[in-house]
């Protein structure tokens, strides 16, 4: 009898200690995991060029910020999702939605900078979004132009070896007419620097941004294509696909465009 009672008590005891420990670990969110999931989803959205994937990614960072507003990194990633959404809407000539996401992105990046002023990624992305805003409302160039330039300067000052800073600077110079300090030459020199820096840049923290390596080659290829250096353009696109075989912009748009231009040349 004693042994039976002893068995029952031990059984109950083991059940009880297992359930609460499960409850404690399973009811709390792992924000690190969520950030990683959101980060992956943004990349998928960019690679597949899908609006709903990007919106889902954005939603993840919104949820994180609802419980952890004072964290600079979710603000950065939410704004990065806005940056991608804005690019998508601008490609569809939907200025109204593009402007909406630019404003939201700027708001979150300004908050990210407020929370961590020495985070070069936020400074560089903020500079880019200011540039996008000028692109939609040209008269803001007088006030936002200097602000954008100042943010890029700060980003370089904080982290002069960050390839994404030069990638965004190169893209910005590409979209800025040479009369305003932009142009192909400046775009190329910044993008070249970016590709070199990507070879050596690494971070031990997997939460931090790591995008853009393929994009640096993609933009180089686009510039070479516009300059009619088609062989060089093809080389750059191949390098981009080696890094990221899923990049739909290169696979389905730019390579096709290059093939047509090469045919015309012949």
């Amino acid at each position: 009898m004693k042994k039976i009672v002893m068995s029952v008590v031990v059984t109950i005891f083991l059940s009880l200690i297992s359930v609460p420990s499960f409850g404690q670990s399973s009811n709390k969110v792992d924000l690190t995991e969520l950030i990683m999931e959101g980060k992956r989803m943004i990349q998928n959205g960019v690679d597949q060029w899908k609006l709903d994937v990007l919106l889902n990614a954005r939603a993840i960072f919104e949820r994180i910020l609802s419980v952890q507003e004072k964290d600079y990194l979710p603000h950065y990633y939410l704004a990065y999702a806005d940056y991608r959404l804005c690019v998508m809407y601008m490609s569809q000539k939907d200025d109204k939605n593009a402007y909406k996401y630019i404003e939201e992105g700027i708001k979150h990046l300004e908050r990210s900078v407020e929370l961590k002023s020495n985070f070069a990624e936020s400074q560089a992305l903020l500079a880019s979004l200011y540039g996008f805003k000028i692109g939609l409302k040209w008269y803001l160039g007088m006030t936002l132009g200097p602000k954008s330039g100042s943010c890029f300067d700060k980003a370089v000052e904080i982290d002069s070896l960050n390839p994404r800073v030069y990638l965004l600077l190169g893209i910005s110079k590409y979209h800025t007419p040479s009369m305003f300090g932009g142009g192909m030459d400046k775009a190329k020199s910044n993008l070249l620097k970016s590709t070199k820096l990507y070879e050596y840049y690494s971070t031990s923290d997997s939460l931090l941004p790591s995008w853009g390596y393929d994009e640096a080659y993609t933009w180089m290829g686009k510039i070479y294509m516009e300059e009619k250096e088609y062989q060089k353009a093809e080389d750059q696109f191949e390098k981009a696909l080696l890094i990221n075989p899923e990049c739909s912009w290169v696979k389905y748009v730019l390579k096709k465009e290059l093939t047509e231009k090469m045919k015309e040349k012949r």
Partner: protein
Amino acid sequence: MKRIIICLILGFISSTLSFAQDETCVIKGVVCDQKKERIPYANVFFKDGKLEGQLTNEKGEFEIKTAICGKRKLMVSRLGYENKIIDLQLSTSQLSTLEIILKEEPVELKGVTVTASSFSSKEEDAGIAINKMDVVTTPGAAADVFQSIKALPGLTPVSEGAELFVRGGNPYETSTLLDQASLNHPYHNESHYGGLFGVIDPSVIKDIYFSSGGFSAKYGNALSGVLDIKTEDWVEKSQMDVNVNIAGFAFNSAFPLYNHKMAVRFSGRKSTSDLLFQVNRIRYDFLSIPTSQDGTFNLSWKYSTNGKIRFFVLGGDDQQSLKVDLPSYSQELGTNSKNVLYNLQLIDILPSHILTKISLSSSRYSQAWRYGIWEYENKESTEKLRWDNELSYGKEDFLNFGMEINRESFSFKGIFPEDSTDFSSDAKQKVIEDKNEVNYLGGYTENQIHLSEKLFLKAGIRGDYQSLSRSFSLDERYSLGVSVSPRDVIRISWGTFHQHPRSQHLDREYGNPKLKASKAYHAVIGWEREWDRKALRIETYYKKYEKLPLDDTLINYSNQGYGYAGGVDFIFKANLSSKISGWVTYSFIQTKRKELDFTQLFTTRYDIPHNLNLVGKVKLGISYEVGINYRFCTGQPFTPVVGSYYDSTQVVWKPVYGDINAERFPHYNRLDARLTKIFSIHPDVFSLFYLEILNILDIPNIMDYSYSSDYSKREKVLSYFSKRCMVFGVGVNF
């Protein structure tokens, strides 16, 4: 031993079973707006636990499964809508189905925009915005702040000068503030016909707030309007601008100092009309071409995260002389004026989260004219301390309070003819000379609160005291803002406004030092709608004036004058695409007063019933913009000379005047155009070139009449821009 092992195995299995027990709760539903239209891509998630959630699909539907049941908080968010949090009790035995209604985010009714008749340069303020580029690129405005504001509704175009005649009021009834300091003479070349341009270079302006009526208790000593200008006081990166045009040149520069803890800005402008007249073959009887110059200097220091001290100086002067032929006299009329303002300002946030601003300012103004043996000089100086505070205690609720102390000194001396129609060299003279000093003390408080989600009320009270007459005035001001839909706002403002008499009316010998403040009641109702980058505003208003200065044989002036102004203002502003934008304004006004030498209620010279303004801009390519500005208004009233008689005693013809303001000049028409091109002379330098043609239709608009010596013939005096005129210039930005 065997039994112990069996117990352990049973215990493990039971704990595993309890782990594997499926406690999934499901919640599903739809997200809609208030019209029950489904909202796709709304973010629906649990704000606790593991933040599980999903976006609604294109039909606005969602379904979320969660292993955490019981009390949960569900949050729903979507750009353009207000967030919603719902408390739920989830259970495995019951499927939760929800219909969630999201409200569109309301039009933000912040302090500026609850009040009717307001225009602001801040884009984030709801309502009609005038931005810096509007100032710089409005055709015909010569990149002048005041000329650009005249394109807004409610501004009566009494002259082509820069002075602001707001809803039937004279320029003196509009208060101009520059960073809390008073700028009592904000124009160059002030004359009977108005000052031509402002003394403020647009390059130093950061924000502009303008109100044509019903303005808040924060602003005192103004019967009709307020222009509140904030200047640039900071810079992140060194910059420099140089502008040269056919009528002068300007430069401004700014750079940070001491690791971005300090910033310096300075600017300078010089204008001269010589080349403008030569190129356009305009002949005026100027003996000395009108010239003006002004400059600013600003030094700012950020001593803490929120705290800043700045020192600002503005200085300017102007001069001109021309031959003026009066029926009784013909001589050179020379005028010059000087203007300087010093302002020390502190801005910080107090520990109780109150935004506080303190300004200590000093200004000096002098104006002199000489016409043969006749001359006049007046000098004014103002010392002012102003303190403004703003406490936000809710999303859009705030409490403002503040005070100001002014000391104004004025002096004038001059030699005038006793008979104002006889300027001949042997006419009887009178010498006038006086100086006086008056102190003002004012204080205000106002509160803006939500009465409900869509209803805002702003209530303020203001008290002012004047030392000479020892009079105290109390103003109550109210504004109501109603958001009738996400796009439509109705604003109602009403209240009382006092303004102290002008220095010339307080003169001890020729004025009345005991003269009290004039008073006006304002009532304004307006409707504003914003949609798809377009904005429309219609407002109707009525102003009743009391205690206006009126000539009095015993005491020179009494407070027995009165009058009214009423009308409708309309503005429609649109960005039709990224390349086409513009606005159209229309104003209707009727105004009469009995003041100064009026013996009864008369139409004033500000009674210009219909006023239409059309501005359009088109962007061509990436570097060209073309704009037009068309103005039409009905003729301004004037008092005709209906006859004359010969005064054998004074040996001069004298006019016989008809009824006051009984006739009108012909309608006013003017079309201006402007071409702007942006280009670069160096990769890091961008430049702007502009070409303006003023009065393209070459319509000779009249601003006055002059008469022969016996008043039998009259000649038109044409307006400043009565001939087609070309202006061009180039600006360079480093």
